[in-house]
Every structure is written in C-alpha cells, then in structure tokens.
C-alpha cells in the first residue's frame, strides 16, 4: 500500500473507520524532521500492508491539526479501531515506529 493523504473531509472514514492500525503523520512540506522520516513512512507503507500510513499536511488542514492539539511537527498518532492509542512528537527511527503500531 502507498501512503494516503487525508483531509478534514475524509479523516473519519480513512482513519477512524479503518479496520487495521493507522499511523497518522502531521507534517509540513517545509519541515526538516518531517522530510527526514518521509522515506521511512513510505518504506513501512510498502512493506507492511497490515498497517495504514496516513499523512496530513498541517498547512492544508489546520482544523485537523487543532483537533488533535498538534503544536509541533512531525506529530505521529496511532489509531486502532478508531481510538487514539498514542501520540508522539519528533522524528523516530523505523523500528520504533513499527513498535508503536504493533
């Protein structure tokens, strides 16, 4: 699977309605640490069909950013069965991202 870009309109369907664990990355195109983890997220999306990787551009989706209190990017959220399981800030290595989803 590839990385999915979500918006305020389809967030509930794509993230909350997912029957597999979802990693949501709040990012911006101009943010260094966000760009640093982008290839890792793409790798996870390609290698792990059992997870859904979703990206949300905070410049495009300020409502979603404020809904989840995003004050720093990247902010990474994990949802399982529509519930927010964990929320972390800053770039994380691949193994730690996978551990969050497991």
């Amino acid at each position, binding site marked *: 699977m590839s990385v999915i870009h979500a918006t305020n309109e389809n967030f509930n369907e794509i993230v909350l309605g997912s029957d597999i664990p979802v990693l949501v990355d709040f990012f911006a195109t101009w943010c260094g640490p966000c760009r640093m983890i982008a290839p*890792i997220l793409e790798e996870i999306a390609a290698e792990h069909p059992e997870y859904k990787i979703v990206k949300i551009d905070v410049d495009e989706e300020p409502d979603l950013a404020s809904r989840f209190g995003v004050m720093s990017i990247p902010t990474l959220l994990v949802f399982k069965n529509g519930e927010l399981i964990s929320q972390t800030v800053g770039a994380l290595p691949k193994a730690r991202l996978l551990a969050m989803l497991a």
Partner: protein
Amino acid sequence: MSDMMKIYDTVIIGGGPAGYTAALYAVRSGLSTLVLEKFSPGGQMTQTAQIDNYPGFHEGIDGFTLGYQMQAGAHRFGAETEQTEVLSADLTASPKRITTDAGEVYGKTVIIATGADHRHLGVAGESDLIGRGVGYCAACDGMLYRGKTVAVVGGGNTAAADALFLSRICAKVYLIHRRDSLRASRIYHEPLENTGNIQILWNATVETLHSEQKLTGVTLRQVKTGETVELPLDGLFISVGQAPNTKLFENQLALDKNGYIISGESTETNIPGVFAAGDVRTKALRQIITAASDGAVAAHMAEAYLSATEVPT
C-alpha cells in the same frame, strides 16, 4: 540483513556530510563501506532550508537535497546504507561489533560521524512539554504559533535567527538571554533591536515551566538581582546550542567535558581503528565543509590503518 556475517572494511555511523564524505572516499579507495543512518541522509543539514556557505552551489542549496546528493554520490561507487538505529557498539572487539535495531554489523574499522543535536535547557518538565509548547525548531513549529506570544531562549546566531523568523509570524517574541550581550553575529543585532514585536530580556534564565496540558508560561530569574518574574507564553523555543551524540560511546572513547570525542585533525580516537569525523569531535569550527573534510581524512586514515594491520593472505 544478510544471514552470513559480513565484515565491512569500514562501518560509518551517521549519514550527514561527514559520514557520506567518509563513505565516498572509503569506497573509492576500495574499501567495502556501510553507512548506518536512522533517518534520511543529511543529519542536521536537513533542518536548513537554504545553505549558502558550502562552496559549489552559488545560488545556495537546501540541506535536504544536499544530504541526498551526498548519499547518492557515495552509493554511485558502491557504498551501502542501512536505515537503522545503532543501539550499542563494541569498538575494541575484533572485528568491531555494532548492534542496531535490525541486528549486528561488523567492521574492521569504524568511523563515528553521529554529529550533534540540540541541547536541552535542563528545566524540570521540559521533555514532557516537547510538542506541547516547548520546541527546538522555530522553522518547523513557528507556523503553529501564528498570532501567539512566544519566547526564544539563547543568545547565539540560531537564537537570533529564530527570534527574527518568529517575529514575522507571532504577535510577540521575547528573547531570553542569561547575559547582558548577545553572542550572535553583529549582523543580527540591529534587526533584533529594530523589530517592534521583539523584546530582549537580558540577564534572565528560565527557572520554571508552567503548564496545564500545554505550556502556559515560565518563571524567569534575574541573574543579577535574583528577582523572579512570571511570563505568560504560548510557546518556548530553546536555542541554547548543540550537544554531541556520543552517549553510545561514553564508556569506550575519551570525551571532553562537553561530551565531544577527543580527536585532532587526524580524526584518530583513543581506540585504534576508530575515527571521529564532523561535529561529534573536538574542533574549532563546526560547519558542513569541515565535517566533509573530516570525512575524507577519516576514510584515508581508515585505509592506512587497514594497510598497516592487515597481513596479506
């Protein structure tokens, strides 16, 4: 990771300008070369949108692109990269053993190019409030404080640049500095003083962070009088310098009091076959070009070490 135990001529920890220059020089001199990097290439450069002091790019280049190009240059000659985090290293073993989150790798030599990271202020609750009002990257998070009141702590070039950057987004920017003059270059002084919504708070240190779910303000202490004053804030950007990434090696390598690996221009450390390149070592000037320079030297020294120690079979 391969199931056969592959021993590289050199394993390079860190994929910034020092690491990938070392990789380029090592692989071009015939050494089998592996770079271990936990994120995308570039290291601290990736945080800089416009680099104007690395020669050869007369209109500047963004750090992220430069990082990828340095990696691509090394890969072109056969250097390899594994995207993993190093968990521990046995630098005196033979071969030297490095444990990553994906398994173990072995090198006859190791080049440490782990760089540096932002230093924490060391105030109680700081780590808990990261991403909830406390930040280290104004360029990253500034936009999320549009119209708000923020403060920058520090007195160097980064703090000055951050304050100016934030002044264009935020309603009010305080610059908190523990001395009565800035260490930042002169070119910043006038803009800082002439920007209406920047206020410099001299001789002040952050004593306490206040929060309710997120940061609400700080208590400042006046260094000279000992007086304390409350400052309500939406955001606090900490810009108090760098700290080297040497925690993994502190029991094996000789470090100076600030944690930098003690090493001269030869990049040699106290352990034979282990070299330190870039911001991670003791040096006078930490720049992309001096990191790249170190990388070239370290690769050369690693090759010389291998030639001297390896018995032809």
